[in-house]
């Protein structure tokens, strides 16, 4: 089966792509959402549990990918289920990915409008973000992977910058008591970040672009671990500095950045941090967008994926503005419906596919590459 784009990425580029798939929005939203339910043990649900969950997702995705080397989810679903159901799965995933792009764009637009530029219409931010991502997507996965290398370092710099500079304000007494209400609240708090950790399911679509597909599993595990560590630190620092109050902030990490003050000189840096974060979000949107485009191209059996980039962009942009009426609806959506929805497309459908593939002994041809 011929790939639509012949771009190839290395194992480490793949790993960083996976990190970017999750990190930029997760860092912004997860602390508040987990602390809300799990309180002081939020770092267990947001860090430890999510890592385990991410491992499961990576295992399912890369096992399927190794079974059908060189194929994306859409390709082997029609191999496993037959032609028409396979296309149906493809159509479902186009919907999922386009919607996710729209939601991610909306999230970040909301963040920008509410914390930096209140007078600017959200359309401007969404439009620019999607326009940037669209041009990145048209340039192909290799360019995205290369950009991502750059951007990941910027994001890490921003995070380390925030974390180290507010460290002196952290009061680790705020982390106690652990396991206050037993295990249940921890699980409850885990449901929201679960959707984020599960985003690693994009391995399904990106794996064929890997130089050596056997590296996918390892890279996935590494990315999952890295994400777990970052999320734990993120939640711990937010808790330690603000205590339970962190749950009331919409964007605790941003508030952390506003709280930085070193010697009365190094302060008021949040706009700078924001600027670095724009890069991360652009990359995240680009990767999701790319996956959406590839899935669409595979589902419609196209030779060239470029023609569908702009139409999908229009849909993403429109949805990014119309899907939610206000920011609370967005947060609530993550809290309720998204949990079930993300579980379905990130885990249940792929796991079922894997199960059926194993039962029907379907296997892709090993390609001599």
């Amino acid at each position, binding site marked *: 089966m011929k790939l639509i784009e012949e771009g190839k990425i*290395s194992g*480490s580029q793949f790993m960083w792509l996976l990190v970017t798939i999750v990190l930029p929005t997760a860092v912004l939203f997860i602390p508040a959402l987990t602390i809300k339910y799990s309180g002081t043990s939020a770092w267990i649900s947001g860090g430890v549990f999510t890592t385990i969950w991410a491992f499961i997702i990576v295992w399912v995705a890369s096992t399927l990918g190794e079974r059908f080397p060189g194929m994306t989810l859409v390709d082997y679903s029609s191999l496993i289920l037959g032609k028409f159901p396979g296309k149906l799965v493809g159509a479902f995933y186009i919907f999922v990915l386009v919607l996710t792009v729209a939601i991610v764009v909306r999230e970040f637009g909301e963040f920008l409008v509410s914390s930096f530029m209140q007078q600017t219409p959200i359309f401007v931010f969404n439009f620019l973000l999607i326009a940037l991502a669209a041009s990145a997507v048209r340039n192909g996965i290799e360019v995205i992977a290369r*950009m991502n290398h750059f951007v990941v370092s910027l994001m890490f710099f921003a995070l380390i910058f925030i974390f180290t500079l507010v460290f002196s304000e952290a009061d680790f007494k705020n982390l106690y008591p652990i396991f206050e209400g037993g295990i249940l609240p921890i699980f409850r708090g885990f449901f929201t970040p679960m959707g984020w950790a599960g985003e690693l399911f994009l391995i399904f679509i990106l794996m064929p672009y890997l130089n050596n597909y056997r590296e996918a599993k390892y890279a996935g595990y590494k990315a999952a671990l890295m994400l777990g560590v970052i999320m734990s630190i993120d939640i711990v620092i937010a808790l330690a500095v603000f205590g339970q109050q962190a749950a009331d902030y919409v964007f605790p990490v941003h508030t952390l950045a506003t709280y930085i003050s070193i010697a009365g000189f190094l302060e008021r840096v949040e706009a700078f941090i924001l600027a670095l974060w724009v890069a991360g979000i652009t990359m995240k949107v680009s990767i999701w967008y790319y996956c959406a485009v590839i899935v669409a191209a595979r589902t419609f059996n196209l030779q060239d994926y470029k023609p569908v980039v702009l139409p999908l962009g229009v849909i993403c942009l429109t949805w990014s503005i119309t899907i939610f009426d206000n920011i609370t609806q967005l947060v609530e959506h993550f809290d309720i419906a998204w949990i079930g929805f993300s579980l379905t497309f990130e885990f249940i459908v792929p796991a079922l596919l894997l199960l059926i593939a194993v039962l029907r002994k379907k296997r892709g041809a090993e390609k001599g590459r």
Partner: protein
Amino acid sequence: MFNVLRRKLKQTLGRNKDLKVPHDKFEHGEGNGDKEKHPISNSLEQNKIILKEIFNNCSDVKFREFELGTAPAVKLLLVYIDGMVSTSDIHESIMNQLMLLEGLMEEISPEHTLELIREKLLPIGELSENGDFIKITDNILMGNAALLIDGEKTALILGIKEWESRGIEEPQSEPVVRGPREGFTERMLTNTMLLRRRIKSSRLKLEIKKVGIVSKTDIGIMYIDGIANNKVVEEVRKRIDRIKIDGILESGYIEEYIQDDWKTPFPLVLSTERPDRAAAHLLEGNVIILTDTTPFALIVPVTFFHFLQASEDYYTHWVGTAMIRLLRIIAVNISLLLPSFYIAIVTFHQEMLPTALLINIASAREGVPFPAFIEAFIMEGTFELLREAGIRLPRPVGQAVSIVGALVIGQAAVTAGLVSPAMVIIVSLTAISSFSIPNYSGALSLRILRFPLMVLAASLGLFGIMVGLMALLLHLCSLRSFGVPYISPIAPFIRSDMKDSVIRFPLWAMFTRPRLIGYKEPQRQEYLQIPKPPANPKRPSGGKERDNK
């Protein structure tokens, strides 16, 4: 676009239809795949008429007729361009030989005149035969002399090129404190000599091509066989062969035709005036393209970091160089971003400034009638104008310009209330930073990009800047120079190449060539040649002393 050019060219060149030999055939010289032959006849008169017609109205082309021997006298015609050949050679090695040594002639039959002249009479190193008008014309135009012999269907081409050229001087565009003072000159053979003197290896190859339908400029492709990537060399050949243009006057012409992407503001080809730099790049596996008539050599493939390197970096201590490299990277950022950063902060993110500074800026801006963006635009524009004026003007006037300029972007503009003092600082810092980028075309691209970024900053603040930077990053990541990713040691990340990008490692640690450029023979030196004190430092010369006893 190119087709149009070619068509136009053909039209203009093909107008002179009444010539016996169509004029444009001569213009499509060798290397153009022109298979048609235009042999000369054995009648000297005939040939002379044709040549005269070809060189109609070319007063500097000299036709000198003379005779060889006494019985039977053979008519000879020497054609050359005055000023491009060595007059002393004409007099002593040619005329003197042929006209005065007539006594020899009697022994030889007239059928062998050509062999005789070629083998016995002309003491000239570079000598060839040719029987085709096109080739002969080309050779005359190149500065060779053609000797036509009555009764022979071939002419002798005498390589006696000599013309005035500038001596080797210190390069103006890339001065150094430490390092060789030699620079390339306008004469290509001098330049190849300068490189050969640095790399005395038979693996250093030179391929000469003629480019330019009218100008027929010599283009030399130099590379070290076995180090340079064959594909790159092949690609260079192909791209140079593809150039169909009337004339090449500077290597910039070549540059524009061979770079991978015409839209980018970034230079995808490095140009240098310094033979040491060119030699260093040859050793790394790059290909050098020399152009006759210009001292600027082109280096391909390049990456973005090449534009932050100066040849001096490798001659001074590595710690200092490492620091200077970092400084240059900061300078790149300042020269690209500082004005837009100022605009963004002053018009959008005022909370980022320390209170005291904000108050100062606010009070300084109190009387300024323009928004910060217009203010910045005026000042940056003024500065660019001044800089341009300073370069173009003759030196004495240039100084006057700089004095006026200092007044304009200095005190006077502030006192007049046109701009705020902070803006003056911003502009001057930007200017200084852009001067500290070693490569002119690299700095130029940053200067261009500064303005769109300012627009973005003025409309969307830091977010706008970041959007601009992301677009820039996207562009940089998609660029390639002869197949090599433009920002290569960073993205894609190549650990072994980091030694010569952001900072420079000591020379002994740079034991590999850049992976994407000189990958054929990656190792360039012995491993671990770390300089060390002598093995037994306690007794540096103890052994000898004992011997004396």
